[in-house]
């Protein structure tokens, strides 16, 4: 099966992710797939959840923090500016406190807490996590392609969703118990109604957002998750370990894409021993990959002669990856 066959055969898999270690070409393959789908009439949003996003670099345009930016017909790209989002979120909380209690300004102690929150570890990741939910919930694209963070971070996202989910369940339960005590007291005092618990409503809202994000990551019907690897020993070992971990989080793996394959025809030319040795090493690892992953490998992507940046180069790679036919 090929990457093209996966896209054509399973059009319901609208959430597409390329995962893998850093520097293996996740952004390149995300952008190339987005380009190919867009040029086949699909409305595609390619967005980055990486604090060190590189979509601006590959499209050679500054799109950081500017919302969905049109790159070409049917293709939009977005890089989330986590700091900006945190600042806006903090202002929103301050405004809510002022509005709710009619304060002239937020009490100092509370304000300090809000300000300090931005320095907390994981605040940035949480903000991006939340931004992704907005992107998925609000948009009306045919495809959402995630330019994922490197493996460790991606796992962290998944585990964060699980931890948050458990945390929310626990405190929702506590809140519900509290509400029962409210009701008992109200009944005994012969009060008719108990005030609505706004916190409980807020918790339920948070829960739906966390679920929206983690359900997509683990939805076999709607999500295609591809692993990117290169024919090198350490990368293959890491990919194997990561695949096991992802499986533990119920992420459906749709296949593997082997990137940076040196053209084997080079071997026939007169080339330096160094290059010959690299090619034979790759051939050996490719054999291993074929044995281990078999027909789960959807594409072998050649090492291009120059950086894949800018639309013309992305188009060339798309031709190699998906073929010319429309």
């Amino acid at each position, binding site marked *: 099966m090929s990457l093209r066959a996966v896209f054509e055969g399973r059009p319901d898999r609208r959430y597409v992710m390329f995962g893998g270690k850093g520097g293996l070409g996740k952004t390149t393959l995300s952008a190339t797939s987005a380009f190919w789908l867009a040029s086949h009439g699909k409305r595609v949003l390619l967005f980055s959840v990486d604090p060190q996003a590189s979509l601006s670099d590959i499209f050679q345009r500054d799109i950081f923090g500017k919302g969905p930016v049109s790159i070409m017909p049917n293709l939009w790209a977005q890089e989330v500016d986590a700091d900006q989002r945190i600042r806006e*979120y*903090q202002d929103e*909380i301050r405004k*809510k*406190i002022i509005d*709710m*209690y009619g304060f002239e300004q937020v*009490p100092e*102690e*509370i304000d300090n*807490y*809000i300000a*300090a*929150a931005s320095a*907390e*570890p*994981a*605040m940035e*990741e*949480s*903000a991006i*996590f*939340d931004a992704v939910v907005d992107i998925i919930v609000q948009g009306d694209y045919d495809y959402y392609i995630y330019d994922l963070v490197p493996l460790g971070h991606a796992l962290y996202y998944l585990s*964060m969703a699980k*931890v*948050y989910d458990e*945390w*929310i369940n*626990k*405190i929702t339960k*506590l*809140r519900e*118990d*509290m509400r029962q*005590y*409210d009701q*008992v*007291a109200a009944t*005994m*005092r*012969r009060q008719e109604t108990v005030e609505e618990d*706004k*916190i409980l409503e*807020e*918790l339920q*809202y*948070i829960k739906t957002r966390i679920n929206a994000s983690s359900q997509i990551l683990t939805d076999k019907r709607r999500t295609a998750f591809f692993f990117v690897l290169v024919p090198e020993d350490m990368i293959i070992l890491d990919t194997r370990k990561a695949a096991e971990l992802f499986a533990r989080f119920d992420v459906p793996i749709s296949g593997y894409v082997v990137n940076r394959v040196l053209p084997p025809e080079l071997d026939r030319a007169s080339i330096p021993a160094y290059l010959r040795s690299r090619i034979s090493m790759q051939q050996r690892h490719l054999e291993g990959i074929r044995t281990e992953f078999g027909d789960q490998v959807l594409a072998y992507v050649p090492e291009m002669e120059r950086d894949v940046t800018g639309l013309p180069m992305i188009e060339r790679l798309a031709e190699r990856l998906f073929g010319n036919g429309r």
Partner: protein
Amino acid sequence: MAESKEPKRGRFLGVFRDIVYGMSSHEMTRHAVRTRASMEHLFILITMGDLLGIPILPPYYSLRLLPYVTPQITSWKRRMLRERDITDILG
């Protein structure tokens, strides 16, 4: 005459009801309200632990809850940071 009797009766019933409430349910109500208050403090600790330097979870979603507990923060901190002694356990 009949008009003034009614409110008197109503007042009497009200006082009677309050006495019965005081004798039977007041203590239970007080217990329910106190338990509710303790749970509120536990809730703030779980969500806003950072305010006391106890990082329990990343505060992103906790911040959404902050406006609703803002009035309780001062009393919560006082309760959490109060020195305790043996009489607390006995009490």
